[in-house]
């Protein structure tokens, strides 16, 4: 059998890997003290990373969000990268210097309004020729709310109901123009069909009506991304999302999550391929496995400085621990479960008493110092090794249903994914589990997603019904 035939056969039976990249935000992933680390705000950094991963045929480029700088003990948290741009604005600029790469923005559904968000996402979809995606997040957070007209109005229990209704309204708006509504026929003098864009929605959170000003974008609806581990979050993703971000990048946990979430799809009338599950991951690559392991240790230690170790402990303990030695044992004082030391960060908010107990037990059993403990529980690096080792591990993870792919977060901005793109991607291509070239132009094409189902409910204040002939 000729080599090409063999390859095609191998490819036919193997799941294809999806790859995304994230410019690192506020978490302590970025080793900003590295001399190769450049600005996280300069447009050149975004362009460099986006063009690198587009060269690597990645599915999309992703940006996280935080609408107020985090505060630690009442002051702005200063140990990690602080400062980021407005996501959709940066991605619109990147749309001009990329041609295929999907562009995914986190946009909060709590401190925004559906009309504005739907219009901005439709704009990005138009400007990028169909490459827009929206990571729908919510906030319960009065701390962040202090920056907005609405303030911290939302009860935590309303987070998902508002988000679900928000998404419903956005979809209503995207469907308010149909594909042929813009005629632009200068001879006949018809620019649009009558009533295009008309919508009305009334619900517990939103009562909106009028005409939407953005005609339908190339993808119809941008790709919808969701992240969430809770039962409610998983259900929301299974019913409404095209992609779910997961934090489970250890194979055993990941497979449980994968099975659970994929298993929920049928209940919403959806097929398994309609929701892609992508954990966040890091990759440390060197010529040999040994060199990579040493480099990974170095990176992890740089990510958890002595000051960072104490700060993380304070965030869980809910009290000032600055008098403790990061290289010494855990403090002998008990956590203050009610007190919140770190504002604007969900990770350190819930179940802190339980976390503290677990950490103390682990530290005692293993004889870990404060800094060693934080390094241990921080999870370290996901994939470590030679290009071959990393490619095999990524492939194995996906083929054994731990994920459909990964969102890679580099520890260096903007050059941190160079090795992944230049040394690992070719091996994945060789294995027949990753595209050689983009086969489509839209993000939905890359992800193998169908065109969105159109909302067919009647619109109050109706618009003229089009004949079949017009619609064809």
């Amino acid at each position: 059998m000729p080599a090409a035939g063999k390859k095609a056969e191998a490819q036919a039976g193997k799941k294809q890997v999806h790859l995304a990249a994230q410019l690192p935000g506020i978490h302590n992933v970025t080793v900003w003290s590295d001399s190769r680390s450049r600005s996280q705000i300069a447009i050149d950094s975004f362009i460099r990373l986006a063009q690198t991963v587009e060269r690597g045929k990645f599915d999309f480029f992703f940006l996280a969000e935080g609408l107020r700088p985090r505060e630690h003990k009442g002051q702005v948290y200063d140990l990690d990268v602080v400062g980021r741009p407005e996501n959709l604005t940066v991605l619109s600029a990147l749309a001009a210097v990329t041609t295929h790469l999907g562009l995914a923005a986190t946009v909060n559904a709590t401190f925004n309004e559906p009309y504005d968000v739907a219009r901005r996402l439709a704009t990005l979809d138009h400007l990028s020729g169909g490459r827009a995606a929206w990571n729908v997040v919510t906030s319960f957070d009065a701390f962040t709310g202090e920056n907005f007209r609405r303030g911290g109005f939302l009860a935590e229990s309303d987070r998902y109901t508002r988000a679900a209704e928000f998404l419903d309204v956005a979809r209503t708006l995207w469907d308010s123009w149909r594909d042929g509504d813009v005629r632009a026929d200068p001879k006949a003098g018809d620019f649009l069909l009558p009533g295009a864009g008309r919508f009305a929605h009334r619900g517990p959170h939103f009562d909106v009506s009028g005409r939407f000003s953005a005609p339908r974008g190339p993808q119809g609806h941008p790709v919808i991304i969701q992240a969430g581990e809770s039962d409610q979050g998983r259900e929301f993703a299974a019913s409404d999302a095209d992609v779910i971000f997961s934090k489970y990048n250890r194979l055993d946990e990941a497979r449980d999550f994968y099975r659970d979430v994929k298993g929920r799809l049928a209940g919403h009338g959806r097929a398994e391929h309609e929701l892609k599950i992508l954990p966040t991951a890091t990759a440390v690559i060197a010529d040999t496995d040994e060199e990579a392991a040493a480099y990974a240790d170095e990176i992890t230690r740089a990510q958890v400085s002595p000051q960072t170790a104490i700060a993380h402990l304070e965030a869980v303990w809910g009290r000032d621990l600055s008098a403790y030695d990061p290289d010494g044992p855990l403090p002998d004082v008990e956590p203050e479960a009610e007190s919140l030391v770190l504002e604007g960060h969900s990770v350190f908010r819930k179940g802190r008493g339980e976390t503290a107990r677990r950490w103390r037990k682990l530290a005692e059993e293993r004889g870990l110092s404060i800094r060693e403990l934080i390094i241990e529980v921080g999870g370290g690096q996901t994939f470590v090794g030679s290009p071959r080792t990393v490619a095999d591990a990524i492939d194995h993870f996906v083929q054994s249903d731990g994920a459909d792919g990964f969102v890679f977060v580099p520890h260096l901005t903007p050059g941190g994914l160079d090795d992944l793109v230049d040394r690992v991607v070719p091996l994945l291509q060789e294995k027949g589990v990753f595209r050689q070239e983009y086969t489509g132009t839209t993000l939905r094409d890359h992800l193998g997603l169908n065109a969105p189902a159109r909302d067919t409910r009647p619109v109050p204040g109706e618009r003229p019904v089009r004949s079949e002939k017009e619609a064809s």
Partner: protein
Amino acid sequence: MTGTPLHLAVALDGAGWHPAAWRAEGARPGELLTAAYWADLVTEAERGLLDFVTLEDPLGLQSAAFHRPDERTDQVRGSLDAVLLAAHLAPLTTHIGLVPTTNVTHTEPFHLAIGIATLDHASKGRAGWRPQISARAADAALFGRRTTPQLTEEDVRDPELIAARLRPLFAEAADVVEVARRLWDSWEDDAEIRDAATGRFIDRDKLHHIDFEGTYFSVKGPSITPRPPQGRPVVTSLAHASTPYEFAAGGSDLVYVTPHDHAGAEAILAQVGEAVERIGRNEREWPLKKFADLLVFLDDEPGAAARRKSRLDELNGGELASDAEIFTGTPGDLADLLLSWRTAGLDGFRLRPGTLPHDLAAITRGLVPELQRRGVFRTAYDATTLRGHLGLRRPDSRYAHRHDRPSAVPSA
């Protein structure tokens, strides 16, 4: 160049400012929402060395009526978010200023401020902003958050009446601009320190809560976006009456006005001057640039532009109406008019092309060379930022030096 240089901007909107422009020869009506269309326009404007382009943003669906929606199907409808469009154009250009319009009545001041700051980062210092209030009651229903006054036919006949009815919205808009300016200042320029010795990425003493408490909303701050390259992007506003003149005097770096002749320009600039005085703004510290808006149809052959406009009027079923003076003629005639009007005290002009791309190309390839021949317009860009083109200095953060001089808080 002899004497004070003339500043020139162009206002881009859809297929041009004539409602039938999309039916003109050379129009690209099927491409108004594509990136390629806008890229062609803005690179043409940059080829003409213009100071900046403005990008309109109606937020709601466009309408032929100022104050209410319509059901017309024979005019351009549908638009893109102007901040995102401007950002898209940033990497495709290197010098020209990019000035999007945003609605400030139904949007979040925090989001607007970081969007414009990000545009400034993405364009390396070429961002401006035109905050606009929403005068249509129907726009409020799109958001369902509040109501705004329904203007009447009588209101819209008189700019002073409109402004009076919308005065609370202008007051709120002034707060939005103030919040944006404070958020841009909320990071001092040297806040990022990357001090490996102490493990600190930033000096948190150089990030400031803005603690804005207004009648309509409050914003805590600081911004999430570091201070933009220009310090503060250039704030511009369009004004036709005393309330908007005060709005411009209170928060703008540049005001567009709509005189219809030289005497009108003098009268308007006097009113703007009075508004500046009432507000107590010190123009030596914080200059306010004055541009006149003109809607233009340009052709080399005498009479051709007027004939072109008439044909479009006919297609549209009525004569073109505009808040701005409508000019038809040759580039040479327009150069004469601009040089004559500017002696009233104008710094420059914002030209609204009647049709696109025709009248834009006539500006860049006809008017600009004519002005260059007369020695009143640049022959090359000599700056890379919008403030640089306009001769405006880069302001310090109002919060800088507070550490040692707590009382010194310049308000400009």
